[in-house]
């Protein structure tokens, strides 16, 4: 019978190498996390475009608030609370302040920081629930998701809301591990802030509360669990009550944008289902494997199930409401909760947990994450190309506008208003969502008749159409422009989005035409909703 002899070939092949990675070093996991965050930063910087309509709206609003609060500017008259999907004086104020310092990139940088925090929280949560290997896999897998990369470069409420919700989750986990109420209070405050940042944060409260309650119950019993739950709910409920009392207009905002929302972009349910699978499917599958992996235990399985189910909250809500708007952003919320399971599955599946030497088994994890990266980056680029690059349009408009003189009608005027704020006052802009007009015989009009009368009387100096979300009104305006002689088409500016090519049509009042109507007192209000 032959004996097995291990010939020390490998040891001889690299005898001079004495440097070794020290797995015992406490810094190593944090180095892995830092590398993940640097990677996420680099990837997100890959996304380049001019400001999205919502970004322009929030940042502009934030600048107005900033000006009022800190520079003694005029009070903000625009009723943003009526249609903003988050507290207007919270995120927009921060974004506006950063915009003053560094422009839209400053506000986007804040979103990046927020999303880096979310990734770090995914790491921490997974490490606490599973192990370090799973945490590393979870963090890097989450960081390369298209939705995550997109939010990392989007100056809207979402990144901040998600960051606060993620911090709340970490605090809830910590709170469940100790008797004191310190982390419980912190969790409550973080979650309240998340809801204030964006009302949709409410959707993910049950998950965090379930984590807190179940983990506390497992460790300290039902009384502790109940106390902590009550504390958190009291903080959140109390905070919301105070905020709504201070500004009752917010009720309408919450109702219209979140609790009783009407779909802005009505979309077929099957289509929404397919989109959800396309954008989150890989993570869903891996998380499902994570859910089913490992030994079954009543202690841990319900918690894993909660995490897994949370992935589906946003898609199900959108499918139920038939709302195609913002699904790609909201996917990232659920993925945060799916990441721990996916990380666990990936670490286990690829042998990452059992084989500690570099070898082919790690190639499985690398390949899966590379695949996720390829999908994620491609999707993020697609998301970021959903709106037109407005550079050419803004450049043309700069040849036409002047401060305090002239009125401009534009589709998605928020972007133009934002980029031309150095030369055009906000009141000079009108848009296609809502418009009041008093014609020269004193007739008060709104909607399409108002636009028609204003065009007939040469009220607008410029009209910019692109047949986007307000295509019906744009068509009505266009018919009037073609039917009359008051305006001349001065430019057709092509643009490209992921949906295809389009044109900005820029009309200017003919040089021989003067405004013939009555002076208008009120201008339009913005109507963009989230």
């Amino acid at each position, binding site marked *: 019978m032959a004996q097995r002899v291990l010939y020390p070939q490998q040891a001889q092949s690299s005898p001079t190498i004495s440097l070794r990675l020290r797995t015992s070093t406490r810094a190593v996991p944090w180095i*892995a996390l830092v590398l993940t965050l640097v990677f996420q930063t680099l990837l997100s910087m890959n996304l380049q475009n001019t400001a999205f309509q919502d970004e322009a709206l929030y940042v502009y609003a934030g600048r107005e608030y900033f000006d009022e609060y800190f520079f003694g500017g005029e009070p903000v008259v625009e009723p943003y609370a009526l249609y903003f999907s988050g507290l207007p004086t919270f995120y927009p104020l921060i974004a506006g302040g950063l915009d003053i310092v560094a422009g839209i990139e400053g506000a986007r940088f804040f979103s990046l920081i927020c999303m880096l925090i979310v990734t770090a929280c995914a790491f921490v949560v997974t490490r606490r629930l599973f192990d370090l290997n799973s945490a590393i896999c979870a963090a890097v897998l989450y960081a390369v998701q298209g939705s995550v990369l997109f939010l990392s470069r989007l100056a809207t409420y979402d990144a901040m809301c998600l960051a606060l919700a993620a911090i709340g989750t970490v605090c809830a986990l910590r709170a469940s591990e100790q008797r004191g109420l310190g982390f419980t209070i912190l969790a409550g405050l973080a979650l309240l802030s998340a809801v204030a940042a964006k009302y949709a944060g409410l959707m993910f409260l049950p998950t965090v509360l379930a984590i807190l309650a179940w983990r506390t119950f497992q460790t300290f019993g039902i009384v502790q669990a109940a106390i902590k739950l009550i504390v958190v709910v009291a903080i959140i409920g109390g905070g919301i009550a105070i905020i709504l009392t201070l500004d009752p207009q917010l009720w309408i905002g919450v109702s219209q944008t979140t609790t009783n929302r009407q779909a802005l972009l009505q979309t077929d349910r099957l289509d929404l289902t397919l989109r959800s699978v396309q954008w989150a499917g890989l993570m869903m599958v891996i998380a499902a494997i994570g859910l089913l992996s490992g030994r079954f235990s009543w202690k841990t399985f319900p918690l894993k199930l909660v995490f897994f189910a949370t992935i589906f909250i946003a898609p199900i809500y959108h499918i139920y409401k038939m709302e195609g708007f913002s699904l790609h952003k909201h996917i990232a919320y659920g993925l945060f909760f799916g990441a721990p399971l996916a990380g666990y599955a990936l670490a286990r599946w690829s042998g990452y947990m059992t084989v500690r030497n570099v070898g082919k088994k790690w190639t499985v994890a690398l390949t899966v994450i590379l695949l996720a990266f390829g999908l994620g980056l491609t999707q993020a680029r697609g998301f970021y190309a959903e709106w037109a690059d407005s550079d050419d349009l803004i450049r043309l408009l700069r040849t036409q506008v002047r401060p305090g003189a002239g009125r401009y009608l534009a589709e998605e005027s928020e972007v133009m208003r934002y980029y031309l704020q150095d030369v055009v006052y906000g009141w000079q802009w009108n848009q296609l969502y809502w418009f009041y007009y008093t014609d020269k015989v004193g007739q008060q009009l709104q909607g399409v008749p108002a636009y028609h009368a204003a065009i007939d009387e040469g009220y607008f100096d410029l009209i910019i159409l692109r047949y986007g979300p307000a295509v019906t009104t744009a068509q009505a305006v266009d018919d009037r422009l073609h039917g009359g002689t008051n305006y001349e088409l001065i430019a057709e500016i092509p643009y490209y989005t992921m949906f295809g090519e389009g044109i900005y049509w820029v009309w200017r009042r003919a040089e021989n035409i003067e405004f013939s109507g009555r002076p208008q007192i009120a201008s339009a209000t913005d109507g963009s909703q989230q």
Partner: protein
Amino acid sequence: MNIGITSAPHTETRPRRIQRWNITMSSLIVPLLAMGAGIWLWQAELGVWVAIATLFISLILVIRAKSSWREVAVWVFGMIVIISAVDYMGWRFRLINLQGWWIGIPLFAAELFGALHVIGLQYTLYPRKPQTLEQHVDPFALPIYIMIPTVNEGIDILRKTINGALIARERYLKQHPEGQVTIVICNDGLVAGYAEWRDVEEIAELLNVTYVTRTTKGGAKAGNLENARQLLNATGNALMVIFDADQVAHPDFLVKTISPFADSRIGWVQTGQYYGNLDNSISHWAHDQQALFYKMLCPGKSNMNAMFICGTNVVLRTAALDEIGGLPQDSVTEDFAASILLHPRWRSVFIEDKLAEGIGPMDLRSYFKQQRRWAMGTLGVLRTHWKEIFLPGRGGLNINQRIQYALACTHYLSGLRDLIYVIAPIAFLITGIPAVIGSNLDSFMTHFIPYFAASQVAFFVAAWRRSGIRGIVIGFASFPILVSAIIAVVSGRKIGFQVTSKQKLKDSNLQQVRPHLAFLLLSIVALVIGLSVNYQSSSVIVTIIWIVYQIGMLGAAIGLAVADDARQLAPFRILNQTIAASFGLMTQRRTLVGAALMTGAAIVVGLVLVLPTINTPVQAFSPLINNSVVRFGVKFPHDLLDTQVTVLRDEIGTAPQIIGRTQEIDDNFDSLWAAELTAMRARPWVTLLFSQPSVDIYYASLPAIANGVHDQALQRWARTIADYQYPVYLTVLPHVDRNWSTSSAVTNNGIPADVTRAWLHIQRIFADEGAGNVAWVWSPADPINDELYAPPTDSIDLVLMSLIRYPDTEWAAPVDELTAFQSAYPNTPLFIEVSAAGSSERKTAYFTLLHDAVMNVPNLYALIYYEGSPRPGAVLSEHQEWSMLSDPLTTNAIRLMIQDITDTE
């Protein structure tokens, strides 16, 4: 040596079952996933991001590994290389120039070959577990025959080899007294016609070792060995050690190489072939090239049981040789051919330790001859054994062995690859026919740079402290000889086995690098052509960089030959060694340090020459009225700018102190022209228009300027003017009060109120850029009635009045206009621009009147003649009509006027 004995576990624990499951899963899933990822990457065109992603994800995943940094780095960069190579070749495939197929297809094929070998290298280097060997027999009981084949190496060399073998035998027998070691000198001198062949027998007798002198030729080295083996009955259960005549064994050679034969499946144990004569440049560089193979590739091959026999410093089981009828004698690389036949049944092991040392080639001729022999041998094996390597089910080699043999067999095709690499850029720059079409610099950088950078980093990580750039350079230098070897193999020519010379030959190395010199000259010619034709084209830029790299490589090969020759000239040896050393061509580490220093110095010099001078304080310039200094200036249309200044100076008798021109915003401030003016003691006056060719006129409108459309261009102008440092007169918004102006306040969406906004906006940008050396010239069409348009007075340094007199029109009396002008701007320095076309008498009369009028303008700053037709696009004959030199009378009148106003001081 440490040999650990392990026993199989009695029960399989749960983690082990998981591990087995994982291994099974991964063996199925890894290839599938890798294939999927490859296809995805191919079509996704993620370019540089794939490399970045691989780098980060790999680092993140392996950071907790219990592996050495080198293993981790090899793993990470190996992954990046493979993925970026797939990405690059996918991109590259789409860009083959099929129109110029004669260069497009060969270059792509060469690149594909290179990429496959780069991937193959990474595959070989990939960290793997070593083979697990079993212990079946006591290897130390096997008889050992140390065979030392010799032809004509000489007694001195052979004596050292025999002594080395004796010491190794002694050390071995001390540890294993039961062992039997026979040292055999296989003397082929007689059949090779070597005059001193008897000396070999004498030295063998003297040192008390066995010798066999062959009397029948055939089979070269293999025949010699096989003859001795059969004669001494070194067959069956025995071991045969082969040392080339110059390979001196280290004392522990046998001690370390025999133990693996405890596993009865082991057919041979190979060790490295290292050179000891590193004081010779050629052998040192060749040693580095050898090290790439022995120190980097062989351990990887060994882990895959794919290490082949290298002909020397090897221990073979004779039973294995018996199976294939002895060493094949129809190949000059009999060792390699034997391995292919043996590997299906026998295992091989490589030991990296330095267990023997030999003499490397001492001049380029010997080196090239050695390379040619190896190339012809392995390519010959490819020709005869390709079926065993490439056809499934043939030969019995496993997949890893097939890959390794395929890589080894095709390695020397790299000569053809390098030849194509050398020819392609030269062909492109000379003929203009590209091998690649449809790319741009960005795309190239995105796809090629990650691949190139990753493969370089991966290589140097793996080669760290093992080999280096010298090995690469001398490998590249072999390409002409490898090409000739390929031709020889393809044409079926045979060469006999020739021993690599162990002495330095008398021939000059320069003879060996004649092809390199020819390609160097061609490269330099191509470079000159490239630099002179259109170096702004991205393909030309890339090719120029490529050809510079190529010149460096060819230069290094030639430099090696020159330095080695220089070192051998006895009367100047010390001096030449000093020179060679100072140029980094000595064989030691100084080579690279010297090269690095020289490169660094070249970069520093380049930067000093190329980089613009660091900003120095800009002179503030504010024109002042001084009646004693009134300047004469000339403004030219663009096509007369370079030709007329000296003519005018000679004819008028006064050198112009201001030279004007009109430019568009997309142009650049012409610093060279301005510097020429400075040398002539003249100052530039630029009229800047915001019109742009093929751009809508809206972009020249006043709102466009005021609202920042041209800010970047203005900043560029401001910076270059600030860099110029000397005074510049600058007119913007000329004739803004008229509808013919490109930036008009009465049309093109402009209104009078826009003028001040635009004017101050431009000035603010210049101020921000520190261009204090600009004097702002306000130039309305009607400066007498410009209240509606004029910017604030304190923002105007000079005001211009144009007195352009067209033929067939009524010419107002200059004195009236100038009086009104002077009244409108009593305290502002005035520019008066004049030009006229018409009859000689009329012009003379006008200039005489003007002469009188300007003498009475106290705030006159400069009188400027517009030396050309104001009509845009005017031809030379029209310009002549408006010239100061259009006729003698006009010239005289102008001369007098200019002399008068400039002589006032």
